[in-house]
Protein backbone atom coordinates (compact mmCIF):
# COMPACT_ATOMS: atom_id res chain seq x y z
CA UNK A 1 0.00 0.00 0.00
CA UNK A 2 1.51 3.32 -1.08
CA UNK A 3 1.86 6.42 1.08
CA UNK A 4 -0.83 8.16 -0.96
CA UNK A 5 -3.28 5.33 -0.23
CA UNK A 6 -2.42 5.51 3.47
CA UNK A 7 -2.97 9.24 3.47
CA UNK A 8 -6.41 8.73 1.99
CA UNK A 9 -7.42 5.86 4.28
CA UNK A 10 -5.88 7.19 7.48
CA UNK A 11 -8.65 9.67 8.52
CA UNK A 12 -11.35 7.07 7.92
CA UNK A 13 -9.59 4.28 9.72
CA UNK A 14 -8.29 6.26 12.66
CA UNK A 15 -11.01 7.57 14.93
CA UNK A 16 -9.71 9.78 17.72
CA UNK A 17 -11.10 9.13 21.19
CA UNK A 18 -10.96 11.03 24.47
CA UNK A 19 -11.32 9.70 27.99
CA UNK A 20 -13.90 11.30 30.24
CA UNK A 21 -14.36 10.77 33.97
CA UNK A 22 -17.89 11.33 35.35
CA UNK A 23 -19.06 12.19 38.88
CA UNK A 24 -19.11 8.53 40.03
CA UNK A 25 -15.43 8.12 38.99
CA UNK A 26 -16.32 5.89 36.04
CA UNK A 27 -14.25 6.53 32.89
CA UNK A 28 -15.73 6.50 29.40
CA UNK A 29 -14.13 6.57 25.98
CA UNK A 30 -15.87 9.00 23.62
CA UNK A 31 -15.25 10.12 20.03
CA UNK A 32 -13.23 13.31 20.18
CA UNK A 33 -15.25 14.96 17.42
CA UNK A 34 -18.47 14.58 19.42
CA UNK A 35 -16.92 15.37 22.81
CA UNK A 36 -15.45 18.60 21.48
CA UNK A 37 -18.97 19.84 20.81
CA UNK A 38 -18.93 20.76 24.53
CA UNK A 39 -16.83 23.92 25.07
CA UNK A 40 -15.51 22.73 28.46
CA UNK A 41 -14.14 19.46 27.03
CA UNK A 42 -12.79 21.33 24.01
CA UNK A 43 -10.85 23.69 26.32
CA UNK A 44 -9.42 20.79 28.32
CA UNK A 45 -8.20 19.04 25.16
CA UNK A 46 -6.75 22.08 23.40
CA UNK A 47 -5.33 24.06 26.32
CA UNK A 48 -4.27 21.31 28.73
CA UNK A 49 -3.90 18.33 26.37
CA UNK A 50 -6.04 16.19 28.66
CA UNK A 51 -8.10 13.11 27.78
CA UNK A 52 -5.59 11.43 25.50
CA UNK A 53 -5.25 8.40 27.79
CA UNK A 54 -7.12 6.66 30.58
CA UNK A 55 -4.59 7.88 33.13
CA UNK A 56 -5.14 11.54 32.25
CA UNK A 57 -8.91 11.46 31.67
CA UNK A 58 -10.83 14.73 31.65
CA UNK A 59 -12.62 15.15 34.98
CA UNK A 60 -16.14 16.36 34.30
CA UNK A 61 -18.04 18.53 36.82
CA UNK A 62 -19.93 16.70 39.57
CA UNK A 63 -23.30 17.65 38.01
CA UNK A 64 -22.51 15.32 35.08
CA UNK A 65 -23.58 11.78 35.93
CA UNK A 66 -23.03 8.87 33.46
CA UNK A 67 -26.72 8.92 32.52
CA UNK A 68 -26.62 12.65 31.82
CA UNK A 69 -23.38 12.36 29.88
CA UNK A 70 -24.98 9.69 27.72
CA UNK A 71 -27.95 12.01 27.01
CA UNK A 72 -25.67 14.96 26.25
CA UNK A 73 -23.53 12.89 23.89
CA UNK A 74 -26.66 11.71 22.06
CA UNK A 75 -27.64 15.35 21.61
CA UNK A 76 -24.15 16.26 20.36
CA UNK A 77 -24.03 13.25 18.04
CA UNK A 78 -27.27 14.29 16.34
CA UNK A 79 -26.45 18.00 16.03
CA UNK A 80 -22.85 17.40 14.98
CA UNK A 81 -23.89 15.62 11.79
CA UNK A 82 -23.86 18.14 8.92
CA UNK A 83 -26.65 18.43 6.37
CA UNK A 84 -29.60 18.03 8.72
CA UNK A 85 -32.51 20.39 8.10
CA UNK A 86 -33.77 22.82 10.73
CA UNK A 87 -37.07 20.97 10.78
CA UNK A 88 -35.31 17.71 11.66
CA UNK A 89 -33.29 19.39 14.40
CA UNK A 90 -36.38 21.06 15.84
CA UNK A 91 -38.32 17.80 15.84
CA UNK A 92 -35.43 16.00 17.55
CA UNK A 93 -35.13 18.75 20.18
CA UNK A 94 -38.84 18.55 21.00
CA UNK A 95 -38.65 14.81 21.56
CA UNK A 96 -35.37 15.12 23.43
CA UNK A 97 -36.83 17.29 26.22
CA UNK A 98 -39.90 15.08 26.69
CA UNK A 99 -38.54 13.63 29.89
CA UNK A 100 -39.67 13.87 33.50
CA UNK A 101 -39.12 17.14 35.36
CA UNK A 102 -36.37 15.86 37.66
CA UNK A 103 -34.27 14.50 34.80
CA UNK A 104 -34.87 17.73 32.90
CA UNK A 105 -33.49 19.73 35.83
CA UNK A 106 -30.50 17.40 36.07
CA UNK A 107 -29.89 17.70 32.33
CA UNK A 108 -30.07 21.51 32.52
CA UNK A 109 -27.54 21.53 35.34
CA UNK A 110 -25.19 19.14 33.49
CA UNK A 111 -25.42 21.05 30.20
CA UNK A 112 -24.76 24.32 32.03
CA UNK A 113 -21.67 22.91 33.76
CA UNK A 114 -20.34 21.73 30.37
CA UNK A 115 -21.10 25.22 28.94
CA UNK A 116 -23.23 23.66 26.22
CA UNK A 117 -25.36 26.74 25.54
CA UNK A 118 -27.75 25.34 22.88
CA UNK A 119 -28.78 22.52 25.21
CA UNK A 120 -29.06 24.89 28.20
CA UNK A 121 -31.41 27.11 26.18
CA UNK A 122 -33.45 24.12 25.07
CA UNK A 123 -33.89 22.65 28.55
CA UNK A 124 -34.47 26.10 30.10
CA UNK A 125 -37.28 26.75 27.64
CA UNK A 126 -38.80 23.38 28.52
CA UNK A 127 -38.63 24.21 32.24
CA UNK A 128 -40.07 27.68 31.64
CA UNK A 129 -43.03 26.08 29.85
CA UNK A 130 -43.62 23.81 32.85
CA UNK A 131 -43.49 26.73 35.32
CA UNK A 132 -45.57 29.22 33.31
CA UNK A 133 -49.18 29.68 34.36
CA UNK A 134 -48.79 27.92 37.70
CA UNK A 135 -49.28 29.19 41.23
CA UNK A 136 -46.42 29.07 43.78
CA UNK A 137 -48.12 26.12 45.51
CA UNK A 138 -48.35 24.13 42.27
CA UNK A 139 -44.70 24.90 41.46
CA UNK A 140 -43.64 23.71 44.92
CA UNK A 141 -45.58 20.47 44.42
CA UNK A 142 -44.02 19.81 41.01
CA UNK A 143 -40.43 20.50 42.04
CA UNK A 144 -40.68 19.46 45.73
CA UNK A 145 -39.43 22.83 46.92
CA UNK A 146 -39.57 24.18 50.48
CA UNK A 147 -41.84 27.09 51.43
CA UNK A 148 -39.31 29.27 53.22
CA UNK A 149 -40.82 32.71 52.54
CA UNK A 150 -42.52 34.78 55.22
CA UNK A 151 -45.99 36.22 54.60
CA UNK A 152 -44.53 39.71 54.04
CA UNK A 153 -42.02 38.35 51.53
CA UNK A 154 -44.76 36.52 49.66
CA UNK A 155 -46.81 39.68 49.31
CA UNK A 156 -43.93 42.03 48.64
CA UNK A 157 -42.44 41.06 45.26
CA UNK A 158 -44.83 42.37 42.62
CA UNK A 159 -47.88 42.93 44.75
CA UNK A 160 -50.09 44.58 42.19
CA UNK A 161 -49.64 42.13 39.37
CA UNK A 162 -49.84 38.74 41.04
CA UNK A 163 -53.39 38.35 39.74
CA UNK A 164 -53.50 38.71 35.98
CA UNK A 165 -55.39 41.95 35.28
CA UNK A 166 -56.63 40.66 31.95
CA UNK A 167 -58.39 37.71 33.56
CA UNK A 168 -59.85 39.95 36.28
CA UNK A 169 -61.17 42.39 33.71
CA UNK A 170 -62.50 39.66 31.44
CA UNK A 171 -64.40 38.08 34.32
CA UNK A 172 -65.95 41.43 35.11
CA UNK A 173 -66.90 41.96 31.47
CA UNK A 174 -68.37 38.47 31.14
CA UNK A 175 -70.47 38.99 34.27
CA UNK A 176 -71.77 42.27 32.85
CA UNK A 177 -72.53 40.66 29.48
CA UNK A 178 -74.37 37.78 31.14
CA UNK A 179 -76.52 40.26 33.04
CA UNK A 180 -77.28 42.25 29.89
CA UNK A 181 -78.17 39.08 27.99
CA UNK A 182 -80.56 37.98 30.72
CA UNK A 183 -82.26 41.37 30.67
CA UNK A 184 -82.53 41.32 26.89
CA UNK A 185 -84.03 37.83 26.87
CA UNK A 186 -86.54 38.80 29.55
CA UNK A 187 -87.53 41.89 27.57
CA UNK A 188 -87.82 39.83 24.40
CA UNK A 189 -90.09 37.38 26.17
CA UNK A 190 -92.32 40.17 27.48
CA UNK A 191 -92.59 41.67 24.00
CA UNK A 192 -93.47 38.30 22.49
CA UNK A 193 -96.09 37.61 25.14
CA UNK A 194 -97.51 41.11 24.71
CA UNK A 195 -97.60 40.63 20.97
CA UNK A 196 -99.42 37.35 21.32
CA UNK A 197 -102.04 38.95 23.53
CA UNK A 198 -102.46 41.87 21.13
CA UNK A 199 -102.74 39.58 18.13
CA UNK A 200 -105.37 37.62 19.98
CA UNK A 201 -107.43 40.67 20.83
CA UNK A 202 -107.11 42.07 17.35
CA UNK A 203 -107.99 38.84 15.58
CA UNK A 204 -110.91 38.29 17.90
CA UNK A 205 -112.28 41.71 16.98
CA UNK A 206 -111.51 41.41 13.29
CA UNK A 207 -113.23 38.03 13.06
CA UNK A 208 -116.45 39.62 14.17
CA UNK A 209 -116.28 42.22 11.42
CA UNK A 210 -117.37 41.27 7.92
CA UNK A 211 -114.74 40.61 5.34
CA UNK A 212 -115.15 41.42 1.66
CA UNK A 213 -115.23 38.75 -1.03
CA UNK A 214 -111.96 39.92 -2.54
CA UNK A 215 -110.32 39.64 0.87
CA UNK A 216 -111.64 36.12 1.31
CA UNK A 217 -110.16 35.13 -2.00
CA UNK A 218 -106.72 36.32 -1.01
CA UNK A 219 -106.58 34.94 2.55
CA UNK A 220 -104.98 31.57 1.76
CA UNK A 221 -102.20 33.12 -0.30
CA UNK A 222 -101.45 35.73 2.27
CA UNK A 223 -101.18 33.99 5.56
CA UNK A 224 -99.79 30.72 4.34
CA UNK A 225 -96.22 31.86 3.74
CA UNK A 226 -95.43 33.88 6.86
CA UNK A 227 -96.67 31.18 9.19
CA UNK A 228 -94.52 28.51 7.64
CA UNK A 229 -91.58 30.89 7.88
CA UNK A 230 -92.26 31.49 11.54
CA UNK A 231 -92.30 27.86 12.51
CA UNK A 232 -90.51 25.24 10.50
CA UNK A 233 -92.50 22.45 12.07
CA UNK A 234 -95.86 23.74 10.82
CA UNK A 235 -97.11 21.48 8.07
CA UNK A 236 -97.56 23.17 4.72
CA UNK A 237 -101.14 24.27 4.26
CA UNK A 238 -103.05 23.52 1.11
CA UNK A 239 -103.42 26.64 -0.99
CA UNK A 240 -107.04 27.19 -1.90
CA UNK A 241 -107.02 27.51 -5.66
CA UNK A 242 -110.78 27.85 -6.11
CA UNK A 243 -112.12 30.79 -8.04
CA UNK A 244 -114.03 33.68 -6.47
CA UNK A 245 -117.32 32.33 -7.87
CA UNK A 246 -116.72 28.91 -6.27
CA UNK A 247 -115.97 30.56 -2.96
CA UNK A 248 -119.11 32.70 -3.28
CA UNK A 249 -121.27 29.69 -3.89
CA UNK A 250 -119.57 27.90 -0.97
CA UNK A 251 -120.25 30.84 1.35
CA UNK A 252 -123.86 31.11 0.19
CA UNK A 253 -124.35 27.44 1.05
CA UNK A 254 -124.76 26.14 -2.51
CA UNK A 255 -122.13 23.44 -2.14
CA UNK A 256 -124.52 20.72 -1.15
CA UNK A 257 -124.48 21.44 2.55
CA UNK A 258 -128.04 20.68 3.74
CA UNK A 259 -127.80 22.95 6.76
CA UNK A 260 -126.61 25.97 4.85
CA UNK A 261 -125.05 28.76 6.83
CA UNK A 262 -125.18 28.76 10.62
CA UNK A 263 -126.69 31.69 12.41
CA UNK A 264 -124.31 34.33 13.60
CA UNK A 265 -125.38 33.96 17.24
CA UNK A 266 -124.39 30.29 17.49
CA UNK A 267 -121.19 30.99 15.65
CA UNK A 268 -120.26 33.79 18.04
CA UNK A 269 -120.90 31.56 21.05
CA UNK A 270 -118.70 28.79 19.65
CA UNK A 271 -116.00 31.27 18.81
CA UNK A 272 -116.01 32.73 22.33
CA UNK A 273 -115.64 29.25 23.81
CA UNK A 274 -112.73 28.50 21.50
CA UNK A 275 -111.05 31.79 22.34
CA UNK A 276 -111.29 31.15 26.08
CA UNK A 277 -109.83 27.66 25.73
CA UNK A 278 -106.98 28.95 23.60
CA UNK A 279 -106.12 31.88 25.83
CA UNK A 280 -105.97 29.64 28.92
CA UNK A 281 -103.77 27.06 27.16
CA UNK A 282 -101.58 29.85 25.83
CA UNK A 283 -101.13 31.31 29.31
CA UNK A 284 -100.12 27.92 30.71
CA UNK A 285 -97.67 27.36 27.88
CA UNK A 286 -96.05 30.77 28.23
CA UNK A 287 -95.70 30.33 32.01
CA UNK A 288 -94.15 26.93 31.51
CA UNK A 289 -91.72 28.36 28.98
CA UNK A 290 -90.89 31.22 31.33
CA UNK A 291 -89.91 28.75 34.01
CA UNK A 292 -87.75 26.85 31.54
CA UNK A 293 -85.96 29.99 30.43
CA UNK A 294 -85.21 31.10 33.96
CA UNK A 295 -84.05 27.64 34.87
CA UNK A 296 -81.76 27.25 31.88
CA UNK A 297 -78.17 28.30 31.45
CA UNK A 298 -77.57 31.70 29.79
CA UNK A 299 -76.14 30.09 26.66
CA UNK A 300 -79.43 28.41 25.82
CA UNK A 301 -81.65 31.34 26.59
CA UNK A 302 -81.70 32.97 23.20
CA UNK A 303 -82.66 29.74 21.42
CA UNK A 304 -85.21 29.06 24.14
CA UNK A 305 -86.74 32.49 23.62
CA UNK A 306 -86.90 31.90 19.88
CA UNK A 307 -88.65 28.59 20.46
CA UNK A 308 -91.17 30.29 22.73
CA UNK A 309 -91.81 33.05 20.21
CA UNK A 310 -92.41 30.39 17.58
CA UNK A 311 -94.84 28.40 19.69
CA UNK A 312 -96.74 31.55 20.57
CA UNK A 313 -97.63 32.02 16.93
CA UNK A 314 -98.58 28.39 16.41
CA UNK A 315 -102.23 28.59 17.48
CA UNK A 316 -102.94 30.86 14.54
CA UNK A 317 -101.59 28.31 12.14
CA UNK A 318 -104.00 25.62 13.23
CA UNK A 319 -106.87 27.86 14.24
CA UNK A 320 -109.83 27.22 12.00
CA UNK A 321 -110.96 30.78 12.62
CA UNK A 322 -108.30 31.85 10.14
CA UNK A 323 -108.29 28.88 7.84
CA UNK A 324 -109.44 29.26 4.24
CA UNK A 325 -112.67 27.43 4.99
CA UNK A 326 -114.01 30.11 7.33
CA UNK A 327 -117.76 30.54 7.26
CA UNK A 328 -118.84 34.17 7.05
CA UNK A 329 -122.09 35.95 7.60
CA UNK A 330 -123.45 36.79 4.19
CA UNK A 331 -125.85 39.50 5.25
CA UNK A 332 -123.84 42.44 3.99
CA UNK A 333 -122.16 40.93 0.96
CA UNK A 334 -122.55 43.22 -1.98
CA UNK A 335 -122.96 41.22 -5.18
CA UNK A 336 -123.26 44.27 -7.38
CA UNK A 337 -119.58 45.36 -7.32
CA UNK A 338 -118.37 47.17 -10.42
CA UNK A 339 -116.15 44.63 -12.33
CA UNK A 340 -113.46 47.26 -13.04
CA UNK A 341 -113.31 48.27 -9.39
CA UNK A 342 -113.30 44.62 -8.36
CA UNK A 343 -110.35 43.94 -10.65
CA UNK A 344 -108.51 46.96 -9.27
CA UNK A 345 -109.10 45.82 -5.69
CA UNK A 346 -107.91 42.30 -6.54
CA UNK A 347 -104.71 43.70 -8.03
CA UNK A 348 -104.13 45.87 -4.97
CA UNK A 349 -104.79 42.95 -2.64
CA UNK A 350 -102.36 40.71 -4.53
CA UNK A 351 -99.73 43.44 -4.53
CA UNK A 352 -100.22 43.98 -0.80
CA UNK A 353 -99.99 40.23 -0.17
CA UNK A 354 -96.75 40.00 -2.14
CA UNK A 355 -95.20 42.91 -0.26
CA UNK A 356 -96.35 41.65 3.10
CA UNK A 357 -95.02 38.15 2.53
CA UNK A 358 -91.68 39.33 1.21
CA UNK A 359 -91.23 41.72 4.13
CA UNK A 360 -92.44 39.30 6.78
CA UNK A 361 -89.10 38.19 8.37
CA UNK A 362 -87.79 41.76 8.51
CA UNK A 363 -91.05 42.99 9.98
CA UNK A 364 -91.04 40.31 12.64
CA UNK A 365 -87.47 41.27 13.50
CA UNK A 366 -88.49 44.92 13.79
CA UNK A 367 -91.42 43.95 15.96
CA UNK A 368 -89.26 42.01 18.36
CA UNK A 369 -86.52 44.61 18.53
CA UNK A 370 -88.52 47.77 19.06
CA UNK A 371 -91.63 48.44 21.05
CA UNK A 372 -92.69 51.54 19.15
CA UNK A 373 -95.94 52.04 17.30
CA UNK A 374 -96.05 51.18 13.64
CA UNK A 375 -98.41 52.37 10.98
CA UNK A 376 -100.14 49.61 9.09
CA UNK A 377 -101.68 50.23 5.71
CA UNK A 378 -104.98 48.46 5.22
CA UNK A 379 -107.05 48.05 2.11
CA UNK A 380 -110.78 48.51 2.37
CA UNK A 381 -113.50 47.12 0.12
CA UNK A 382 -114.12 50.43 -1.56
CA UNK A 383 -110.53 50.55 -2.78
CA UNK A 384 -109.32 53.42 -0.59
CA UNK A 385 -106.29 53.35 1.67
CA UNK A 386 -106.72 53.91 5.36
CA UNK A 387 -103.89 54.29 7.84
CA UNK A 388 -104.25 52.85 11.31
CA UNK A 389 -101.67 52.87 14.06
CA UNK A 390 -101.57 49.78 16.21
CA UNK A 391 -98.86 49.35 18.75
CA UNK A 392 -96.66 46.45 17.64
CA UNK A 393 -99.28 44.97 15.36
CA UNK A 394 -99.05 43.94 11.73
CA UNK A 395 -102.20 42.63 10.14
CA UNK A 396 -101.44 39.55 8.08
CA UNK A 397 -104.36 40.06 5.70
CA UNK A 398 -106.66 42.88 4.53
CA UNK A 399 -109.76 43.45 6.61
CA UNK A 400 -112.89 45.50 6.44
CA UNK A 401 -113.20 48.22 9.01
Amino acid at each position, binding site marked *: MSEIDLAVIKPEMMKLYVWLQTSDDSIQQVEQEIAMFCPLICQEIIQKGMGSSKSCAICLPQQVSPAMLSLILDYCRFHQVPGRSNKERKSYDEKFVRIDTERLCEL*TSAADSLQLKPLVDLTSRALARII*EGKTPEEIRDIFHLPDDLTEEEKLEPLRNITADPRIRLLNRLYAKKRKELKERERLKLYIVLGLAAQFFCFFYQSCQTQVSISSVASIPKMHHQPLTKLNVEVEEEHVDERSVDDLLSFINGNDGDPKGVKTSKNKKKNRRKKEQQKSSSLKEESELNKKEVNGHDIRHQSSEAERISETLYLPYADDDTFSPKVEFDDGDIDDEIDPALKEKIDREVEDFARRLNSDWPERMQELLSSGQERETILFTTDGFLRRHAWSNCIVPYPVNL
Partner: protein
Amino acid sequence: MDVEAEIDRLPIDLLAHIFVLFTSFTDLAQASGVCKKWKQGVKESLARRHNLSFAGWKMDDDSTARLVFHAYNLTKLEIPRSCWGCQITDAGLLRISFAKCISNLTSISLWGLTGITDEGVVQLISRTRSLQRLNVGGTFITDESLFTIARSCPKLETIVLWSCRHVTENGLFALVDQCLKLKSMNVWGTRVPVECLNNLLIVSPALQIKV
Protein backbone atom coordinates in the same frame (compact mmCIF):
# COMPACT_ATOMS: atom_id res chain seq x y z
CA MET B 1 -27.96 13.72 46.75
CA ASP B 2 -31.67 14.44 47.09
CA VAL B 3 -33.22 13.63 43.73
CA GLU B 4 -36.58 15.06 44.76
CA ALA B 5 -35.38 18.66 44.95
CA GLU B 6 -33.32 18.43 41.78
CA ILE B 7 -34.19 21.95 40.68
CA ASP B 8 -32.83 23.22 43.99
CA ARG B 9 -29.39 22.21 42.76
CA LEU B 10 -29.59 24.67 39.87
CA PRO B 11 -27.45 27.74 40.52
CA ILE B 12 -29.25 31.09 40.83
CA ASP B 13 -27.84 32.37 37.55
CA LEU B 14 -29.32 29.36 35.76
CA LEU B 15 -32.68 29.96 37.44
CA ALA B 16 -32.43 33.58 36.30
CA HIS B 17 -31.76 32.35 32.76
CA ILE B 18 -35.00 30.33 32.92
CA PHE B 19 -36.97 33.30 34.27
CA VAL B 20 -35.66 35.59 31.52
CA LEU B 21 -37.62 33.39 29.10
CA PHE B 22 -40.92 34.28 30.81
CA THR B 23 -43.09 36.62 28.76
CA SER B 24 -45.63 37.28 31.49
CA PHE B 25 -45.06 39.48 34.53
CA THR B 26 -47.71 37.44 36.33
CA ASP B 27 -45.58 34.30 35.93
CA LEU B 28 -42.56 36.19 37.26
CA ALA B 29 -44.57 37.29 40.28
CA GLN B 30 -45.73 33.73 40.90
CA ALA B 31 -42.20 32.36 40.60
CA SER B 32 -40.88 34.92 43.07
CA GLY B 33 -43.40 33.62 45.61
CA VAL B 34 -42.09 30.03 45.55
CA CYS B 35 -39.04 30.26 47.79
CA LYS B 36 -36.16 32.58 48.71
CA LYS B 37 -33.85 31.18 46.06
CA TRP B 38 -36.43 31.62 43.32
CA LYS B 39 -37.18 35.12 44.52
CA GLN B 40 -33.52 35.94 44.13
CA GLY B 41 -33.56 34.28 40.71
CA VAL B 42 -36.45 36.50 39.60
CA LYS B 43 -34.56 39.60 40.73
CA GLU B 44 -31.50 38.47 38.80
CA SER B 45 -33.57 37.74 35.72
CA LEU B 46 -34.86 41.31 35.83
CA ALA B 47 -31.30 42.55 36.24
CA ARG B 48 -30.34 40.70 33.05
CA ARG B 49 -33.03 42.33 30.95
CA HIS B 50 -32.08 45.07 28.54
CA ASN B 51 -35.63 45.75 27.35
CA LEU B 52 -38.67 46.13 29.56
CA SER B 53 -42.08 46.68 28.00
CA PHE B 54 -45.32 47.00 29.93
CA ALA B 55 -47.41 47.15 26.75
CA GLY B 56 -50.72 45.37 27.33
CA TRP B 57 -50.29 45.27 31.10
CA LYS B 58 -52.33 47.16 33.63
CA MET B 59 -49.48 48.62 35.62
CA ASP B 60 -49.57 51.04 38.51
CA ASP B 61 -46.88 53.32 39.94
CA ASP B 62 -45.82 50.91 42.67
CA SER B 63 -45.27 47.72 40.66
CA THR B 64 -43.75 49.55 37.68
CA ALA B 65 -41.22 51.35 39.88
CA ARG B 66 -40.33 48.13 41.71
CA LEU B 67 -39.67 46.24 38.48
CA VAL B 68 -37.62 49.07 36.97
CA PHE B 69 -35.54 49.24 40.17
CA HIS B 70 -34.58 45.58 39.81
CA ALA B 71 -33.80 45.93 36.09
CA TYR B 72 -30.56 47.87 36.50
CA ASN B 73 -29.12 46.89 33.09
CA LEU B 74 -32.08 48.32 31.23
CA THR B 75 -31.52 50.31 28.04
CA LYS B 76 -35.07 50.38 26.66
CA LEU B 77 -38.16 51.16 28.73
CA GLU B 78 -41.72 51.13 27.36
CA ILE B 79 -44.64 52.20 29.52
CA PRO B 80 -47.32 52.88 26.91
CA ARG B 81 -51.01 53.25 27.64
CA SER B 82 -52.64 49.84 27.41
CA CYS B 83 -56.24 48.91 26.68
CA TRP B 84 -56.70 48.42 30.43
CA GLY B 85 -56.36 52.14 31.05
CA CYS B 86 -53.58 54.34 32.29
CA GLN B 87 -52.53 53.95 35.90
CA ILE B 88 -49.11 55.63 35.80
CA THR B 89 -48.93 59.08 37.33
CA ASP B 90 -46.24 61.70 38.02
CA ALA B 91 -45.56 59.99 41.36
CA GLY B 92 -44.66 56.80 39.48
CA LEU B 93 -42.34 58.62 37.09
CA LEU B 94 -40.65 60.31 40.06
CA ARG B 95 -40.00 56.92 41.69
CA ILE B 96 -38.76 55.44 38.41
CA SER B 97 -36.39 58.38 37.95
CA PHE B 98 -34.36 57.21 40.99
CA ALA B 99 -33.67 53.76 39.48
CA LYS B 100 -30.06 52.89 38.59
CA CYS B 101 -30.85 52.13 34.97
CA ILE B 102 -32.26 55.57 34.10
CA SER B 103 -28.91 57.13 33.23
CA ASN B 104 -28.22 54.26 30.77
CA LEU B 105 -31.58 54.31 29.02
CA THR B 106 -31.38 54.92 25.28
CA SER B 107 -35.11 54.60 24.57
CA ILE B 108 -38.18 55.62 26.57
CA SER B 109 -41.83 55.37 25.54
CA LEU B 110 -44.53 57.07 27.60
CA TRP B 111 -47.03 56.96 24.75
CA GLY B 112 -50.59 57.87 25.67
CA LEU B 113 -50.04 58.20 29.42
CA THR B 114 -52.75 60.75 30.11
CA GLY B 115 -52.11 60.63 33.85
CA ILE B 116 -48.70 62.29 33.57
CA THR B 117 -47.81 65.97 33.31
CA ASP B 118 -44.68 68.09 32.91
CA GLU B 119 -43.86 67.51 36.56
CA GLY B 120 -43.26 63.77 36.14
CA VAL B 121 -41.66 63.99 32.70
CA VAL B 122 -39.20 66.68 33.83
CA GLN B 123 -38.16 64.56 36.85
CA LEU B 124 -37.57 61.48 34.69
CA ILE B 125 -35.90 63.11 31.69
CA SER B 126 -33.58 65.31 33.76
CA ARG B 127 -31.85 62.14 35.04
CA THR B 128 -31.29 60.56 31.64
CA ARG B 129 -27.93 61.03 29.93
CA SER B 130 -27.92 58.62 26.99
CA LEU B 131 -31.43 59.03 25.60
CA GLN B 132 -31.68 58.62 21.81
CA ARG B 133 -35.37 57.87 21.28
CA LEU B 134 -38.29 59.40 23.18
CA ASN B 135 -42.01 58.87 22.62
CA VAL B 136 -44.32 61.15 24.59
CA GLY B 137 -47.15 61.10 22.04
CA GLY B 138 -50.69 61.48 23.32
CA THR B 139 -49.65 63.05 26.63
CA PHE B 140 -50.48 66.52 27.97
CA ILE B 141 -46.92 67.81 28.18
CA THR B 142 -46.09 71.43 27.41
CA ASP B 143 -42.98 73.37 26.39
CA GLU B 144 -41.63 72.97 29.92
CA SER B 145 -40.94 69.28 29.22
CA LEU B 146 -39.41 70.10 25.84
CA PHE B 147 -36.99 72.58 27.45
CA THR B 148 -35.86 69.86 29.89
CA ILE B 149 -35.47 67.35 27.03
CA ALA B 150 -33.40 69.89 25.12
CA ARG B 151 -31.12 70.44 28.14
CA SER B 152 -30.77 66.81 29.30
CA CYS B 153 -30.68 64.79 26.07
CA PRO B 154 -27.83 65.92 23.80
CA LYS B 155 -27.81 62.49 22.07
CA LEU B 156 -31.52 62.58 21.17
CA GLU B 157 -32.17 61.37 17.61
CA THR B 158 -35.93 60.74 17.47
CA ILE B 159 -38.83 62.32 19.32
CA VAL B 160 -42.53 61.60 18.95
CA LEU B 161 -44.83 64.45 19.99
CA TRP B 162 -47.85 62.96 18.25
CA SER B 163 -51.01 64.79 19.34
CA CYS B 164 -49.25 66.78 22.09
CA ARG B 165 -51.62 69.69 21.67
CA HIS B 166 -50.02 71.91 24.31
CA VAL B 167 -46.55 72.20 22.78
CA THR B 168 -45.69 75.35 20.85
CA GLU B 169 -43.01 76.51 18.42
CA ASN B 170 -40.87 77.76 21.35
CA GLY B 171 -40.41 74.24 22.70
CA LEU B 172 -39.69 72.82 19.25
CA PHE B 173 -37.10 75.52 18.53
CA ALA B 174 -35.36 74.75 21.83
CA LEU B 175 -35.23 71.05 20.86
CA VAL B 176 -33.80 71.67 17.40
CA ASP B 177 -31.37 74.24 18.75
CA GLN B 178 -29.86 72.08 21.52
CA CYS B 179 -30.33 68.48 20.36
CA LEU B 180 -27.84 68.59 17.53
CA LYS B 181 -28.22 64.89 16.66
CA LEU B 182 -31.99 65.14 16.20
CA LYS B 183 -32.98 63.41 12.96
CA SER B 184 -36.71 62.79 13.23
CA MET B 185 -39.66 64.55 14.83
CA ASN B 186 -43.32 63.53 14.73
CA VAL B 187 -45.59 66.52 15.32
CA TRP B 188 -48.81 65.12 13.87
CA GLY B 189 -51.85 66.50 15.67
CA THR B 190 -50.03 69.36 17.35
CA ARG B 191 -51.21 72.95 16.90
CA VAL B 192 -47.90 74.18 15.58
CA PRO B 193 -48.36 76.28 12.40
CA VAL B 194 -46.79 75.23 9.11
CA GLU B 195 -44.58 78.37 8.93
CA CYS B 196 -42.97 77.34 12.20
CA LEU B 197 -42.15 73.90 10.79
CA ASN B 198 -40.59 75.55 7.75
CA ASN B 199 -38.45 77.67 10.06
CA LEU B 200 -37.34 74.52 11.90
CA LEU B 201 -36.18 73.05 8.60
CA ILE B 202 -34.17 76.20 7.91
CA VAL B 203 -32.39 75.74 11.27
CA SER B 204 -31.88 71.99 10.72
CA PRO B 205 -32.21 71.00 7.04
CA ALA B 206 -31.51 67.29 7.71
CA LEU B 207 -34.44 67.04 10.14
CA GLN B 208 -37.36 64.83 9.12
CA ILE B 209 -40.62 66.30 10.35
CA LYS B 210 -43.63 63.99 10.25
CA VAL B 211 -46.92 65.84 10.12
